[in-house]
């Protein structure tokens, strides 16, 4: 695997990862996002509906929390999780946890980490963890790590230190176990940077992890509510400065467009795509513009649409803070609102997703009001497409040195 940087602009890395995967013949552009899945499947989507989406990420994210409980079945199956879930051609990254459902804290010990599946808790020592990875055979996997230093409100230095110590110990154990397994050697271990909110521990974690033969780095513990990220951004820069340039940097728990850009500016390459899923679950559709360089003709046609949306957002910001739908962002519209009942426009004018090419806001509204399953399917198709389009625009903006314009556009639309 080789990461080559095309350019670095204001801390943002644009590049390509080549010779990727167990077969060594995949390529991935960065910055990029990974396809979010639940129990090995994109939410709501079958292979058919998933593959109508343009610009699907080259790599999908699997969560150990949804798969660990099936490891005996996978051991019998023998052919790996990719084939089992019907995605034999896709690159696969296995994270420990599901970014959408935080797991209960207090279950990490010196010897084990627990994940929470639908069937309950699965406790894993390093050997059990590696045995499970051996049945999954993903291309990349997050190493067993202690991410709980960032769980509580105030991290104690002691707890931060423990998270780094434990994670390094787990890493060394897992690397050793990997050497003993032919199967596991085909997969790449992603080292996890811990350390809570303690700068010293964060730097130590970065430096020590970077000494190990990992394929990339996961920046853990920066997620939380929007306020927490702001305070952690300075930590993030310091951490990435300690990491080698030629290995990919992933971050977990960060998926909002504005936060994605903040992290890219601080040297992060890969993100999870659970944000479009969360938007779908609240019956909303992503409508934010990422057209930082609108074509002059189209501007005349579409600008009104974008401006209308933005205007509306400004006007109703006050309303939203008192509404019960607090989690909704200004990057989206809520299709359950009565005003969409007779709106025969697509979700987003000009969007090339299946939903926008075939259906109207009024139809989606009807499906939501009548609690129909198809609402989730169509919204997921649109939201993923919109989100992957956003990432494409990030790469394009970086190529043409226009990221600041894109950032300004996104910030204008952030609440």
């Amino acid at each position, binding site marked *: 695997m080789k990461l080559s940087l095309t350019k670095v602009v204001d801390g943002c890395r644009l590049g390509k990862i080549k010779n990727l995967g167990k077969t060594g013949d995949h390529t991935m552009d960065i910055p990029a996002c990974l396809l979010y899945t639940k129990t*090995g*499947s*994109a939410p709501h989507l079958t292979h058919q509906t998933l593959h109508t989406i343009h610009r699907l990420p080259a790599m999908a994210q699997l969560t150990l929390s949804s798969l660990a409980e099936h490891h005996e079945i996978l051991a019998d199956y023998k052919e790996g999780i990719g084939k089992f879930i019907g995605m034999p051609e896709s690159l696969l990254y296995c994270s420990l946890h599901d970014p959408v459902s935080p797991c209960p804290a207090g279950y990490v010990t010196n010897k084990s980490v627990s994940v929470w599946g639908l069937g309950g808790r699965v406790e894993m020592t390093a050997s059990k963890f590696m045995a499970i990875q051996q049945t999954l055979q993903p291309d990349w996997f997050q190493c067993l790590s202690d991410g709980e230093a960032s769980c509580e409100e105030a991290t104690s230095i002691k707890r931060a230190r423990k998270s780094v110590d434990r994670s390094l110990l787990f890493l060394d154990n897992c690397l050793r176990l990997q050497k003993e397994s032919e199967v596991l050697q085909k997969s790449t271990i992603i080292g996890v940077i811990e350390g809570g909110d303690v700068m010293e521990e964060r730097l130590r974690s970065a430096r020590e992890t970077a000494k190990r033969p990992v394929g990339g780095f996961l920046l853990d513990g920066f997620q939380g509510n929007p306020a927490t990220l702001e305070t952690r951004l300075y930590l993030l820069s310091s951490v990435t400065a300690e990491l080698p340039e030629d290995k990919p940097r992933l971050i977990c728990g960060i998926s909002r467009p504005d936060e994605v850009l903040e992290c890219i500016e601080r040297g992060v390459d890969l993100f999870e795509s659970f944000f479009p899923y969360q938007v779908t679950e609240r019956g909303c559709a992503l409508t934010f513009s990422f057209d930082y360089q609108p074509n002059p003709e189209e501007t005349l046609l579409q600008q009104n649409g974008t401006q209308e949306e933005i205007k509306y957002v400004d006007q109703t910001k006050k309303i939203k803070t008192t509404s019960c739908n607090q989690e909704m962002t200004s990057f989206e519209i809520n299709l359950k609102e009565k005003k969409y009942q*007779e709106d025969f426009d697509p979700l987003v004018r000009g969007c090339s997703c299946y939903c926008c090419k075939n259906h109207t806001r009024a139809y989606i509204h009807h*499906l939501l009001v009548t609690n129909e*399953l198809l609402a989730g*399917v169509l919204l997921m198709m649109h939201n993923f497409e919109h989100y992957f389009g956003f990432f494409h625009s990030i790469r394009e903006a970086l190529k043409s040195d226009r990221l600041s314009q894109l950032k300004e556009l996104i910030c204008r639309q952030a609440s």
Partner: protein
Amino acid sequence: MASAVSPTSLESAPRLMRLVAECSRSRARAGELRLPHGPVATPVFMPVGTQATMKGITAEQLDALGCRICLGNTYHLGLRPGPELIQKAHGLHGFMNWPHNLLTDSGGFQMVSLVSLSEVTEEGVRFRSPYDGEETLLSPEKSVEIQNALGSDIIMQLDDVVSSTVTGPRVEEAMYRSIRWLDRCIAAHQRPDKQNLFAIIQGGLDADLRATCLEEMTKRDVPGFAIGGLSGGESKGQFWRMVALSTSRLPKDKPRYLMGVGYATDLVVCVALGCDMFDCVFPTRTARFGSALVPTGNLQLKKKQYEKDFQPIDSNCACPTCQKHSRAFLHALLHSDNTAALHHLTVHNIAYQLQLMSAVRASIVEKRFPNFVRDFMGTMYGDPTLCPTWATEALASVGITLS
């Protein structure tokens, strides 16, 4: 052609159905419906998409499975989103973006299924909406008006539906009222050139009442006839006899639509008895409960026995689910909260039903339908002698023996 007595009948209406082949033994027929949104091969199973959607699957997926006609429901759509909105959206086809044919039920069945919320008078059915408590009157005129706005290719008369377990004078009352309501529907129908109004034969499980209904309704020159009031709680023995009686008295050159029938065995038997069209929520509903339909019955995929079963649901099935996924994966997915599991099964079950009808039709066209029936029963029940009695009797009545 036979003359129609009613002054509002459509004597010059072109025939909707073209017969392609008939079984020389039984009453099975293969045909083609020439509908405004394209031809439909019969016998046909029509999946049910009650609220302007096939639950969980896109129009494109449904089209790719070969479906060319599906159902919508007037009662539900009349309440939400309402006929005015659908009209603004260019009809139900435009609203759900379905390029092929649609059949809408009149709302009559909801009288039985939602009986606690309804009251029947000569005027129509008074419903109390479960959503906002508002009262609506669904009359024959109103039902046709809504269906005219929906623009479906086949519309159903409003019938006075009585549960098949009800006996006594109510059944007779409902039968005669259905005839009167048929005439009111015909009179109210604003778009006979674009939408085909079907009559619905009632009469419960009483042969005399059925016969009377058949005699009267066939005097009206409607493009097709449905056999209603069955597929409820009646015994299968009574069920098949009423179907056979109906098909024996319905004109040969018009489609016979048996409402609410969808179990594989029932489909095969009722094709033998001379039915052309079927609808049922069963295949799609059972999918959402984790049950996959197969030639030997069904697989309850949530059960532990499928945990490590790495075969597809049916290795002979051409559907996307069977092409890509194993029972074991579907088992795991069904135990998760990812709705994709339900959609995989919905796709498969619809494929199963459509593939079954396709195979039935091919056997009729190729003059080997009785053998097909024997093979089908053998696969389903292990041995033709283990086939349920009612099915054996029904098939025997039209000249098909199983052993």
